[in-house]
Each structure stands twice: as C-alpha cells, then as structure tokens.
C-alpha cells in the first residue's frame, strides 16, 4: 500500500534532507511489522516505516512536550487532534511552535481496536479495508472520533488529504508549510476543498445522542451514573499520563500532595473531578484518556460534554488559535466592565 503513505513519506524525507528538522516523530512500523509505534526518525532509511492508516494509539504532542529538548527542530506527522494539542501546549508555554514542523493528515476518525495485519483507511462516508471499499461502519470508530468536528488539520503547517484512490493532495497552511513542500519538491494543490459536511453531521448526531441521553436523566440519576463509573477506577493514572493537556510536572493528584489518599482503591471521587476541573475548559476530545482506561470509564465523554457547555459560554474553541487563552485561567478585557456575578 505504498501509494497511501508515499507522499507523506516524501515530505518527511524532504524535511530531513534539507535539514529543516533534526528528527521527525510519526507513527511507524515497529520492530514487529504488524506493530504501530511512535517513532523518532533521524535516519532517511527509517522514513519508509511511516504509516498513515487510520489508527492513532497515543498522543505525539504529549511525547514531545514531555521528553524532548526544548530547542531541537522537530517534524511531526499528526492528525488534527494532536495538532490542536500542540497549539494548546504552546499556549501553556510547554513548547515553542516555532521549533515544530507539523505535517497534518486529514482525518475522518480512527479505529478503536486495530486488527493487526489489516490496513484500514477511514474516509468521510466509506472505509477501505485491505484495498476493499465499504460503507463506513461507525461502530468501529473510536467513540471520541464519532463526536469529532475537526477533520482538517488547519493548525498544522501542511495538510495532506488521502483520497480513496490513495492519491494524496497537499496544501500548505503556513509559510513554514511552503518551506517544507519546496524542500520536498511537492507541488502545492491550492484551494482543494474537503467536504466536511458529512463529518459535521456525524459529530452533531453522536453528540446529540451521547450527551442527550445524559441530559435527559434526572440530575440524581446522572450523579449516580457518574459515581458508579468513577468507582470502577483502579487509579492507574492512565488518563492523566495520556492526556496531552495534563502537563504539570508536580501533579495535584500525586500521592505526595496528600489530596488523594495513598493505597485507596477506588480513589476518592475527587480524583476524577479534579481532572475534570483542570482540563474541562479546553478538552480536545482526542480520546486518549478513554482509550487508555483499563476499566473503560467513558471519561472522554464527560470531559467533552463539559467542554461543549463551556465553549458555548466562554466562546472558546480549544486548539485553534494560539492567542485565545484558556477561558478559566485567563481573563479578558471585557470581563473588567461586567459588574455581575455571571459573565453575561
């Protein structure tokens, strides 16, 4: 299936050859051919291992923010949730976007569980498994992807759209993007429009369904639903460790902070509520928390639901604009003239 990955690989190859970046982080085949792992690529020959199939097992933004040296020039092959995570982390002074060259892949959802040995590509209404085109089965998508409204990585420097035929259309979104493409000798397809209406419709439908179910409940019923979910927790810290927005080195939930008791399982409900308070205002709905959770607690649904409510009130969309600060931790000039205890 070289055709599907080829253009992205060529872009990466061009970036490395021209010395724009020292290394590239992307999902690629691991030592075992059927594994897909995040890989830091410095060597031209490893570029062939990069894959673009609809599977995205962890947040690359989290990886670079945590482990990399701050001044290195790094290229990344990301989907829009991760490109948005990069913007959110840059807002929080965790990384400098100047040092990153983001190659975005247009994404209509990724699968929740991957069948090893099968190649799956998801398009807005169809999916292609091992070269065979079928109508899209929404059941195989990750639950957060069904609710996702951001198929196009406009915040990345370059966005690549993989067509059903395997051809890839490439657009540069920024000056850096044009630099990348000229280094890789790839023609820019200006102005191709992607049809996002099907995706938006799907997102609205699933949000209505999943949030609607909860909103229809009596508040007491909803409370016991969430408490019973929280009580499944085994305090593995997986949600915190996989969340691209949880960047604190000294975490509030760590045992040394004495907020959450040691050796207590399930943890106090405050564990989940604290996480909800900390990331709820700018949750990216990347779904990493839920995908990691061994107890299958639908946490991304909870965070996304609060985020949707808050984004209406604060007129805030996370991950799109680096100058738009997180609404709960930054006040604006309009706040100063409002006299009431509410914002409206």
């Amino acid at each position, binding site marked *: 299936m070289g055709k599907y990955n080829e253009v992205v690989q060529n872009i990466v190859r061009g970036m490395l050859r021209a010395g724009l970046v020292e290394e590239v982080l992307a999902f690629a085949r691991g030592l075992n051919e059927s594994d897909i792992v995040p890989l830091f690529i410095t060597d031209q020959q490893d570029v062939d291992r990069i894959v673009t199939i609809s599977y995205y097992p962890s947040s690359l933004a989290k990886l670079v923010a945590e482990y990399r040296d701050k001044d290195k020039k790094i290229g990344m092959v990301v989907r829009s949730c991760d490109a948005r995570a990069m913007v959110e982390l840059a807002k929080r002074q965790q990384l400098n976007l100047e040092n990153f060259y983001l190659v975005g892949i247009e994404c209509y959802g990724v699968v929740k569980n991957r069948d090893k040995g099968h190649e799956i590509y998801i398009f807005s209404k169809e999916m292609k498994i091992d070269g065979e085109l079928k109508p899209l089965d929404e059941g195989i998508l990750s639950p957060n992807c069904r609710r996702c409204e951001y198929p196009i990585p406009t915040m990345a420097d370059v966005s690549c759209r993989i067509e059903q035929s395997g051809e890839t259309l490439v657009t540069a979104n920024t000056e850096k993007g044009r630099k990348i493409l000229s280094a890789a000798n790839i023609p820019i397809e200006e102005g191709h429009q992607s049809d996002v209406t099907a995706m938006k419709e799907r997102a609205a439908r699933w949000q209505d369904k999943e949030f609607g179910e909860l909103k229809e409940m009596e*508040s007491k019923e909803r409370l016991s639903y969430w408490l019973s979910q929280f009580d499944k927790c085994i305090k593995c810290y997986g949600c915190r460790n996989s969340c691209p927005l949880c960047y604190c080195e000294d975490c509030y939930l760590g045992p040394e902070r004495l907020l959450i008791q040691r050796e207590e399982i399930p943890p106090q409900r*405050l564990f989940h509520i604290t996480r909800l308070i900390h990331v709820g205002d700018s949750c990216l709905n990347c779904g990493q928390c839920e995908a990691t959770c061994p107890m299958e607690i639908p946490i991304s649904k909870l965070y996304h639901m609060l985020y949707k409510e*808050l984004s209406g009130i*604060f007129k805030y969309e996370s991950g799109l604009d680096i100058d738009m600060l997180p609404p709960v931790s930054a006040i604006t000039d309009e706040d*100063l003239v409002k006299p009431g205890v509410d914002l409206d």
Partner: protein
Amino acid sequence: MNNDFEPKLLGFLCNWCSYAGADLAGVSRFQYPPNIRVIRVMCSARVDPVYVMKAFLSGVDGVFIGGCHPGECHYVKGNYYARRRAVMLRELLEVIGLEPERLKLEWVSASEGTIFAEVVKDFTQTIRSLGPNPLKSEGI
C-alpha cells in the same frame, strides 16, 4: 421535604471585603442563619475549584464564595478569576448531576453588613428548598 433538614453551608470569604462585611454584620447584630461556616481566604481567587468540589464531596450542602465588587479587588483582578471559575463550576455541577444553585458567588463589600446577612439568609433558604446534598445518600 424533610422539615428537620438543616443545611450545612460553607463560606469562602475574601479577607478584604466579604469577611469584613460578615464582621460588620456580626458587630451590628444583624440576624442571619447560623448554618454557614466561614473560611477566610486572602482573595476570592484563592478558592481553587478543587476546594469547592472537595467540600461537596465531603457532604456540604452549599458553598458560598464572597468576593469584592468588580474593580475593588485588593489584588486588582482576583475576583474576575473567581467569577470565571464559578461559571465553570456551575456547569460542572450540572454535568455531573448536582444542582448548580448549590454554588453561589456574590460580591459583598466591607460596608455591606446588611447585604451579607441578606445573602446568607437567601442562600440558606435556597438550599433548604433544594434539600440535602445528594452525595450524602450516595455514600461519600
């Protein structure tokens, strides 16, 4: 509704305005319900949303945050932060299934002893009609 229900309220009062307002209510002998327990904080922005949720999870029926009027904050902008957090917290309460009315933010200045007494009276009444914190019956 159980008539024996006496709400337990927690108040976070800012040192410069609301706490002084509560003090004034006390020395002027304005009557207000004894249901509120007060914690003095240096600024309403000192109230971490986690504290509020910890209070609810510990069985408090209502949380009151008192801050200075906009423009009068001792630390210039603290009360604006408190306001944004309160807006967020009310939505959060709604999402997880607690009544958002259980959290109240009000501006009370140091000279507003009567207003403090009035606010506490109203808030106690609201919580009394809402009934006990449902988390209590869920087991805390």
